[in-house]
């Protein structure tokens, strides 16, 4: 199960992501720099969180136009599993690999705490090791996680089961429509989510609720 982590200037959760993939996958991921036009043959590509390009213009907007993202889009089109967390989610949206947009939190505040996530669809390659309706804990840390899509898009992604995770039990931290915390694309091989499952994978983190997501994404790849 080979994985790759995309690196862009300003990302700061890359080390956490590399640690999670190494600990759960048993093998360190390769890292791919923003100007690389080729991504090695891997089964899982991850874009970690942070503040690529200082969130200039719009969160993820500049990063999404870097050469490496063309390579990510090509891999995604071939069915490779792709996952973006936090800024990685924003980058996937800006790159057009997922529908909708992430806007400034409704509270206008940066939110750094733990939320509850409900597994809205356990049939994806990322959520298959959870039960539908299962509520898990997950840390969040973001300023722009307020998911928005126009009515038609929202109806479509709800109808197609593309909502993977929702904020549960009144913990919506940012005003996201329909409490959306994470979505997959139509084909189901690209996931974007605001919360940080890589920060809840071992007892030292205070819990392991995020582990099953990586096990599923890496397991399917194996």
């Amino acid at each position: 199960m080979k994985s790759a982590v995309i690196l862009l200037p300003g990302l700061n959760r890359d080390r956490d992501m590399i640690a999670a993939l190494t600990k759960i996958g048993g093998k360190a991921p390769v890292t791919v720099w923003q100007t690389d036009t080729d991504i090695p043959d891997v089964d899982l590509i991850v874009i970690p969180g942070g503040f690529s390009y200082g969130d200039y213009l719009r969160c993820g907007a500049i990063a999404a136009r870097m050469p490496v993202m063309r390579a990510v889009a090509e891999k995604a089109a071939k069915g490779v599993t792709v996952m973006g967390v936090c800024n990685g989610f924003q980058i996937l949206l800006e790159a057009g690999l997922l529908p909708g947009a992430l806007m400034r939190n409704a509270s206008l505040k940066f939110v750094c705490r733990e939320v509850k996530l409900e597994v809205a669809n356990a049939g994806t390659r990322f959520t298959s090791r959870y039960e539908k309706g299962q509520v898990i804990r997950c840390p969040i840390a973001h300023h722009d996680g307020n998911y928005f899509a126009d009515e038609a898009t929202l109806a479509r992604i709800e109808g197609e089961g593309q909502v993977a995770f929702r904020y549960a039990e009144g913990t919506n931290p940012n005003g996201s429509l329909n409490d959306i915390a994470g979505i997959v694309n139509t084909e189901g091989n690209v996931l974007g989510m605001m919360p940080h499952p890589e920060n809840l994978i071992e007892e030292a983190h205070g819990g392991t609720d995020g582990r099953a997501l990586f096990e599923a994404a890496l397991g399917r790849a194996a």
Partner: protein
Amino acid sequence: MIKARVTVTLKNGVLDPQGKAIEGALGTLGFDGVGHVRQGKVFDIELESADRAKAEADLKAMCDKLLANTVIENYTVSIT
């Protein structure tokens, strides 16, 4: 040289919490009768070409590809 101004605004129906906060602050300062406030962005762009038609087409492409996120934003281009 052509000088252009691109204005990017949020589409109708897209919530603008920053605009709302600004609206509230204007009220706090004592400005009465302020209706909705929507925040946007302005880009002043210089182009080396003298071809206005090409410049306009290029600027629209720049908006579609980078300057605006057309999921949530509209844009206008004006060449001075």
